[in-house]
C-alpha cells in the first residue's frame, strides 16, 4: 500500500512531530508510515484523513502487490 502522508504534511506545512501530536501517536509511527514500513489501523487512517481534511482513499492507495 502506498501513501502520500509526506505530501499532505507538506501541503499543511506541519512536521512529523506536529502530526504525531494531532493524531495522538508516537513520531516513530508517523515516520514508519511515511517510509512504507507500517500500515496503520483503520482508526488511525481515518484520523489522518480528518486531520488533512481529505478522504482516506486520497492518502492511501492499493498497489499491485496488495491484490495478489
Amino acid at each position: 500500500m502506498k501513501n502520500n502522508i509526506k505530501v499532505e504534511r507538506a501541503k499543511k506545512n506541519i512536521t512529523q512531530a506536529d502530526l504525531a501530536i494531532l493524531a495522538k501517536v508516537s513520531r516513530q509511527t508517523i515516520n514508519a508510515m511515511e517510509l512504507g514500513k507500517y500500515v496503520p489501523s483503520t482508526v488511525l487512517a481515518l484520523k489522518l484523513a480528518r486531520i488533512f481534511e481529505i478522504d482516506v482513499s486520497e492518502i492511501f492507495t492499493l498497489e499491485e502487490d496488495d491484490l495478489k
Partner: protein
Amino acid sequence: MKLNYLFPNKYKKIGWTLLIPSVIFGLITLIFDFEPIFLDFKVPAILVDEILGKKVLFGFIENNILNEIVGIFIIVSSILVAFSEEVNEDEYISKIRLESLVWAVYINYGILLVAFLFIYDFSFFWVMMLNMFTILLFFIIRFHLQISKQKNMLNNEE
C-alpha cells in the same frame, strides 16, 4: 484504542531497578552455589519426591529458599519491564512488541531444541533452569533494541 493487558508506564522503572540487581545476584548464587544456612526452611510442597525416599502428595520439604526468592524477583521484575507501557505506547509500538515476542519465542525454543539434542543429564537441568528466564530476557533485549533503532532513525531525520 486502549490496550488493557499492559502495566502503566511507571512500573517499567520499578521493573528495571529490580531486574538488574536480581539478575546479577541470581548469576552469582548460581555460579558460586550460594546457600546461606539462615535461609534453610521447612516449606510446604505439592509433591515430595526425595531421592531414595517415597513420593508423597502435599507434604513438607527441607529447602534453601534463596533460589526461590531470587527467581521470583527475576520473573516479576522482567514481566514489569517487558509488559509496561512505553511513554508513547501506540499501535506501531504494539506491533513491534508482538513481533519481538514471536521472535523471542522462536529464539528461546531454538536454543532449547539444540540443547535437547546435544546436552544431556545434569547439564540439561541447567539449560532448563536458564530457559525459564531467557524467553522474557530475549524479548526485553529485542524489543528495546527495536525501539531505540526507531528513535535513532528519527534523530537522523532531523
